[in-house]
């Protein structure tokens, strides 16, 4: 399988006069799961939105396979994005949302899931928040894009569903590069192949979990 590389460099973002991101470098390769951690308001979600192109940033430099994508507003054919909020329109049925999103060749495999089978005949607005989140994550992961950005995927998921999602993310990571951010740090740490901490607008590559304590993201009791 061909390896792809997503590189994000020099991203700066201010809201009013408050600097959110000032020196960001992020690299994600196919089969890598980058766990993006940071305190509330540190700019994790903003960074994902800038990468996907729904928020502008003055000096961003985004490259895929060493080709600059700065002039391209729409990277949706190469990157898919799971937002924090619901993104599947309410008026669709589950089946329709799946048919619009998944390649015909992959449909059979997509449907081989007891959970998907149980919600297949429902409408989107009749799903619980956990059911909807699971469906959204699965749709985004099964997209033909090279990279997936997951913003708070564990929101509203029960522990057993979170485990299913972890398996799904791992299962899809061999053909995609995945960037995941969530305050459920245990799950993020568990599935990530590389942790990155955003602190004071800068990205810090984490080699050892203890660094998360040193850099003030976790307290030492978090590892007890």
């Amino acid at each position, binding site marked *: 399988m061909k390896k792809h590389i997503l590189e994000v460099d020099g991203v700066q973002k201010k809201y009013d006069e408050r600097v959110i991101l000032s020196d960001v470098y992020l690299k994600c390769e196919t089969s890598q799961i980058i766990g993006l951690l940071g305190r509330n308001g540190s700019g994790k979600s903003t960074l994902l939105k800038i990468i*996907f192109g*729904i928020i502008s940033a003055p000096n961003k430099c985004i490259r895929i396979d060493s080709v600059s994508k700065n002039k391209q*507003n*729409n990277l*949706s*054919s190469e990157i*898919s*994005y799971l*937002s924090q*909020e*619901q*993104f*599947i*329109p309410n008026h669709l049925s589950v089946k329709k*949302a799946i048919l*619009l*999103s998944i390649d015909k060749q992959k449909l059979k495999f997509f449907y081989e899931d007891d959970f998907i089978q149980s919600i297949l005949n429902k409408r989107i607005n009749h799903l619980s928040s956990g059911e909807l989140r699971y469906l959204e994550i699965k*749709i*985004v992961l099964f*997209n033909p*894009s090279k990279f997936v950005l997951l913003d708070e995927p564990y929101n509203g998921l029960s522990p057993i569903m979170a485990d299913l999602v972890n398996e799904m993310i791992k299962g899809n990571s061999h053909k995609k590069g995945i960037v995941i951010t969530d305050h459920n740090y245990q799950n993020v740490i568990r599935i990530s192949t590389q942790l990155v901490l955003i602190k004071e607008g800068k990205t810090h590559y984490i080699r050892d979990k203890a660094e998360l304590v040193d850099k003030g993201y976790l307290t030492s009791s978090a590892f007890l």
Partner: protein
Amino acid sequence: MVINLTVCAVAVLFGGFDYFFITILSFGFLMSIAFKELYRQNDYLFYSNNGISKIHLLVFAYAFTFFTTILIGFITFVIKNVF
């Protein structure tokens, strides 16, 4: 389309049927886009994730409205002249 047609219905009610064609292609269409921008902005992400940009969606929506208007105009013309 539902919002556009609702705006058109109000225009027809107060101004007559001729206003339908102007409203559906202008104010009614803008109102439906404004509603999406205000209340359903995340819906665009669903289409973005499927490789369809916001611009493409807007162009397709206007083209669809335009051809629907022509169809309604043609049917109205036929009904007026036949019956």
